[in-house]
């Protein structure tokens, strides 16, 4: 029985039993032959056993071959079984009818064995090819669906990472827009403050699409943010980001990047361009400038590259417009590009609009140009404007980074003393400051740092408006030196304990103190009013 199951199954249909025997005789050695004496039986067997091929006699009483064929083709279960009509010579005129009903071929009676075998073999082979093709198509469609899914996931990752809340402040405004293309992904933008005055703006374009591009973008974005937090130079940030992204880059993804650090108080913007299309500045008077300086190649290609930076000043009413090539390379139906020229014309003509309008109007302009052509690449724009007159006054300030060693306190206090002398601060103020710093930093090193952990402590000092303000920032564990402050200040010499006195001195000697835990850092502020 097993033997016959691996052989292809042929169903022979004929109302004359002798003809069935003849066919069986010819085919039985290679195939498993089933026989049906009339149409209805044939249909039953066909549906039940799904033969690989049907040899169908045309002239049968009751249901003839054509009707059987028609019914076979109507039933989805038997539709794909190849049907070969077997007919007597003098009925050739009905060939066309047979083919139009879906028959695969005709054989004439009397059946010549080699011809029958050849036809059967041919049509079985044909059927097999069809089956294989069908299967292959199914797999391809499945993979295509999976790819679409991946693209969608990539899209979701990309869009979920974009800051969508635009700060409303008096001194400046920021707005951004990212319109993703259907297939291609990879654009991103970011903006965040690294301190009170400095705003970081980032726009990038990752090569590639789908989930790998989205992940590469996520990593790039977070590396940039991490580096920017303790590195005030765009050149240095980009250099370090490039090193990191170039190191483990097996799929050779790249990203073009434009980073600007804008001081919204002074209006000074330092920027680094790594292979990105140059942004524009639209001055208050409408003049358009292009920031054409390039400071290095795209990110991710090669390690150990030192990027440079340039600087530009923004005045009140000036707008910085950063974008990706999805804007300038948008195409119309004839594949003509929107181009830099059109963008420049558009920017120049939109006088006095807010950054939000600037960005959305530019998108409208691009869409109008494309006029229905499919968007080929992500369109990204980030615009920033200074709304107040820049304050370029130089007030005395000082920054210092020390490591968490007690000896460093001496170095720090020396620098602070030098700063105080240089700015004619009263001696008492300097003394109190030194004491507070000695005790504060001592506490940070003693209690805020993990046992074998070493960390850097940053001190920023500014003197303006008769106030001396110090900021002490460390990245140790959360430690509020002004919390649970109840040291012993009243018991006798014998019973007196010294714990907490240092922190008390810091609090009491300064005119004002503040503690804040910002993400992963402790920020202590010390304020002294200068008479």
């Amino acid at each position, binding site marked *: 029985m097993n033997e016959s199951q691996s052989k292809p199954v042929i169903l022979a249909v004929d109302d004359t039993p002798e003809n069935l025997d003849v066919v069986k005789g010819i085919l039985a050695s290679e195939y498993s032959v089933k026989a049906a004496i009339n149409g209805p039986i044939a249909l039953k067997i066909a549906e039940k056993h799904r033969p690989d091929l049907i040899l169908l006699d045309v002239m049968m009483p009751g249901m003839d071959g054509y009707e059987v064929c028609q019914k076979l083709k109507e039933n989805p279960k038997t539709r794909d079984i190849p049907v070969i009509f077997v007919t007597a010579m003098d009925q050739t005129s009905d060939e066309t009818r047979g083919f139009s009903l879906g028959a695969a071929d005709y054989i004439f009676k009397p059946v010549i064995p080699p011809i029958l075998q050849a036809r059967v073999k041919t049509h079985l082979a044909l059927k097999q090819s069809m089956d294989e093709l069908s299967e292959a198509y199914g797999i391809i469609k499945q993979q295509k669906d999976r790819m679409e899914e991946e693209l969608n996931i990539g899209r979701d990752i990309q869009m979920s990472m974009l800051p969508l809340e635009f700060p409303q402040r008096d001194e400046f405004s920021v707005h951004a827009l990212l319109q993703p293309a259907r297939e291609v992904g990879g654009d991103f933008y970011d903006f965040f403050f690294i301190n009170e005055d400095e705003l970081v703006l980032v726009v990038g374009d990752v090569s590639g699409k789908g989930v790998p591009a989205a992940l590469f973008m996520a990593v790039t974005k977070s590396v940039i943010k991490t580096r920017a937090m303790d590195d005030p130079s765009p050149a240095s940030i980009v250099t370090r980001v490039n090193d990191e992204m170039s190191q483990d880059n097996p799929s050779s993804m790249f990203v073009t990047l434009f980073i600007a650090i804008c001081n919204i108080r002074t209006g000074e913007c330092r920027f680094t361009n790594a292979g990105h299309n140059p942004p524009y500045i639209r001055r208050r008077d409408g003049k358009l400038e292009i920031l054409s300086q390039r400071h290095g190649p795209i990110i991710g290609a090669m390690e150990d590259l030192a990027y440079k930076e340039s600087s530009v000043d923004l005045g009140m009413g000036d707008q910085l417009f950063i974008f990706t090539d999805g804007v300038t390379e948008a195409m119309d139906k004839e594949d003509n590009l929107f181009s830099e020229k059109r963008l420049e014309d558009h920017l120049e003509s939109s006088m006095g609009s807010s950054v939000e309008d600037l960005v959305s109007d530019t998108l409208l302009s691009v869409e109008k140009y494309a006029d229905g052509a499919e968007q080929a690449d992500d369109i990204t724009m980030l615009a920033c404007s200074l709304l107040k007159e820049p304050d370029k006054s130089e007030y005395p300030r000082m920054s210092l980074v020390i490591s968490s060693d*007690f*000896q460093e*306190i*001496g170095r720090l*206090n020396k620098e602070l003393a030098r700063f105080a002398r240089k700015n004619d601060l009263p001696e*008492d103020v300097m*003394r*109190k400051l*030194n*004491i507070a710093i*000695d*005790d504060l930093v*001592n506490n940070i090193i003693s209690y805020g740092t993990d046992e074998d952990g070493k960390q850097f402590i940053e001190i920023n000092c500014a003197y303006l408006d008769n106030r001396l303000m110090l900021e002490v920032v460390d990245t140790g564990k959360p430690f509020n030196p002004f919390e649970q402050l109840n*040291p*012993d*200040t*009243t018991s*006798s*010499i*014998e019973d*007196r304990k*010294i714990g907490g*006195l*240092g922190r*008390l*001195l810091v609090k*009491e*000697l300064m005119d004002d103190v503040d503690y804040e835990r910002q993400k992963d850092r402790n920020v202590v502020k010390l304020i002294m009013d200068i008479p």
Partner: protein
Amino acid sequence: MDIKHRDVGGVSVLDFTGNLDTNTSPTAEAEVSRLLDEGSTKILFNFSELNFISSSGLRILLATAKKLKMSDGKMVVCNLNDVVQEVFDISGFASILNLAANEEEALASF
């Protein structure tokens, strides 16, 4: 920081120049230990040239005061500048240590 030692009528006078803080307190501690080991029971901390003191310095003073109290000795601190005085006030040390405005007064109190 510099510490000079003079003996005035049986009182060990320590003249401090500089700051008594995290990094310099160990030196002060060593010097005072030495004096106590040598048998001093009367110690005068002369702060006329002391710029400032932080809690690390206060710790040394307290330790010295405790030891002297146990051995029936005496410790006085004199010539505090305004800021050092304020530190003593905030920390409550002004109430538990013997303070004097100048050296004569201080020596007279031993």
